[in-house]
């Protein structure tokens, strides 16, 4: 653990923020105020935070349909996100995008994406810009096990190698692609396949913040130093359905319960941090309480946020038309 207590506090808070954001949405969703598809990230917090704690302001990330965790980890404003998820005019996307399209260009967050496999080539483009700037910045794409089978991802990997770009492929294996197990869709092995493109793969335990942080640090340092693209492969699970409302017929009854009770990312980081005497349980509880109050306030303001009107629907299709 080479991280300072301050860094660890920050990481823990980010993970708690994602966990509470998502668990709260799971509770709010059935009430009917949230429209559209909501894909929750609970269970995978250590991956987003373990990667993004290695990033700087000038770095880029691009995310997926399950984007809340990646967005929060890169510093997107939780209130702006919550308002967007509630379809409010003052949400990050002015209520036009919703959960699947949260973005904040000011934070280097190039968008969640509704098209599986669309983000990776775009992130390669951002990596090209990083290389052109020559400031050591990197571009990161998050890719699910399911998305890893998309041709666009293969093309993006090869392109990044050919152009020797500062590109980080984060492969998040949560075991499922919608209703299908990862082992069915991936014909060979994610690590072997990625290495086949000439990309070194840094493996991590996706439930363990420190494991992800260390793997990502090594990978990202390599990418920053001009060695070309790298990959971080982390395995975890998602605690909820593919989307809110998914009956999860493909899953064994106690699967999630077992994960929650044994390897849960929040439990793991708490045990490690308190065990090493960095923070006491009470100190971590204080962070939890602060985050909880923040989420309460975000939900409350989102519920009564301004409703977008026709002007918002009709604007921003173009800059000038």
């Amino acid at each position, binding site marked *: 653990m080479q991280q300072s207590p301050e860094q660890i506090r920050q990481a823990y808070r980010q993970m708690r923020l994602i966990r509470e954001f998502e668990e709260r949405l799971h509770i709010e969703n059935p009430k009917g105020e949230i429209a*559209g598809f909501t894909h929750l990230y609970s269970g995978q917090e250590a991956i987003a935070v373990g990667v993004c704690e290695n990033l700087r302001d000038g770095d880029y990330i691009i995310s997926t349909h399950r984007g809340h965790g990646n967005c929060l980890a890169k510093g997107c404003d939780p209130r702006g996100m919550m308002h967007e998820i509630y379809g409010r005019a003052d949400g990050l996307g002015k209520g036009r995008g919703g959960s699947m399209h949260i973005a904040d260009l000011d934070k280097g967050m190039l968008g969640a994406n*509704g098209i599986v496999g669309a983000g990776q080539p775009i992130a390669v483009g951002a990596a090209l810009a990083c290389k052109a700037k020559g400031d050591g910045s990197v571009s990161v794409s998050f890719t699910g096990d399911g998305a890893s*089978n998309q041709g666009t991802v293969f093309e993006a990997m090869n392109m990044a190698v050919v152009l020797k770009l500062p590109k980080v492929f984060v492969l998040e294996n949560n075991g499922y692609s919608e209703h299908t197990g990862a082992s069915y869709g991936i014909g060979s092995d994610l690590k072997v396949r990625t290495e086949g493109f000439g990309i070194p793969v840094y493996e991590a335990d996706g439930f363990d913040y420190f494991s992800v942080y260390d793997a990502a640090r090594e990978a990202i340092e390599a990418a920053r130093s001009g060695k070309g693209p790298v990959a971080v492969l982390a395995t975890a699970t998602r605690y909820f359905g593919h989307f809110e409302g998914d009956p999860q*017929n493909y899953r064994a009854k106690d699967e999630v319960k077992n994960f929650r009770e044994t390897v849960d990312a929040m439990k793991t980081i708490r045990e490690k941090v308190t065990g090493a005497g960095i923070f006491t349980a009470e100190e971590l509880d204080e962070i939890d309480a602060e985050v909880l109050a923040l989420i309460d306030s975000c939900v409350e303001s989102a519920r009564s946020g301004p409703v977008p009107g026709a002007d918002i629907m009709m604007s921003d299709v173009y800059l000038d038309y």
Partner: protein
Amino acid sequence: MAQLSMRDALNQALHEEMERDSRVIVMGEDVAGGSGGTSGNIEAAGGIFGVTKGLKTKFGGDRVIDTPISESAIVGLANGAALAGLRPVAELMFADFVGVSLDQIFNQMAKFRYMFGGKATTPVVLRMAMGAGMNAAAQHSQTIYPMLSAVPGLKVCVPSTPADAKGMMKQAIRDDDPVIFFEHKALYSRKGEVPEGEFLTPFGEAALVREGKDATVVTLGRMVPFAMKAAEKLEADGITVDLIDMRTTSPIDEETILESLSQTGRLVVVDESNPICSIASEIASLAVTKGFHDLRAPVQKITAPHTPVPFARELERMYVPSPNDIEAAVRAVLEV
């Protein structure tokens, strides 16, 4: 007659056609679901909208194939299998995912027969769910039938009722040309009468679903029930319309539309798509080029605005043409 949802009507059509012809196969993401899962359920999904449910249990994994997320390869798989003698029904889940597989659709399946000296047949049915109504936002709500209707070599179905969905699906599967089959998400659960027994709905024949004398309303998909609502309201004021459900946008049944226009002289076209190069534009152009002398008022085009589909409930509602918009358009053509 049985009352069925469009979902169940489509499901019946698939069951019947797979039963009838062993060359018919079904493929796509989660058309069965559950493979590689931990529950042991080999049909955990049956399609994310439930259209393919029961097929794998009945016909087995060789004919009902779950695929990885690889839309380009899914359509390619269907194309090649069709060229080599099978009759694939491939599912793209959301019509928006055509974006990932467009080459296989418009450069490949659409053109084989023409380019290959008339020898190739590509009896693919490409199913996809389309349309707004679920607040699924800009990448999961589009109605892209105008784009694909513009491609020579493709036939394009846009059913609005469970009966047509079934009859057109059966026709599509037996058709030797590639067929793009659009299913409106907001219509899946709507029930309607479906005749018992064997029936096919031929392509290129619009349905005159309501007869009137004052104006012709041409529409398709989810806009059919919306136009029906508008027509009912207008009737209370003594205004009656011919309401035409196009059913296929390629081929287009020009005759039924022009025949009605020659009686009413007034035309309203309603299309959930964006206005430029829309089906509404196509029908307006038909009226101007072949029905000009019958027109007694400017054609009214009711479409979505020239914007992506917005997410928020209030915005999506504003985006989609409403029964009120249709009613107002009919009143407008009558004022001239």
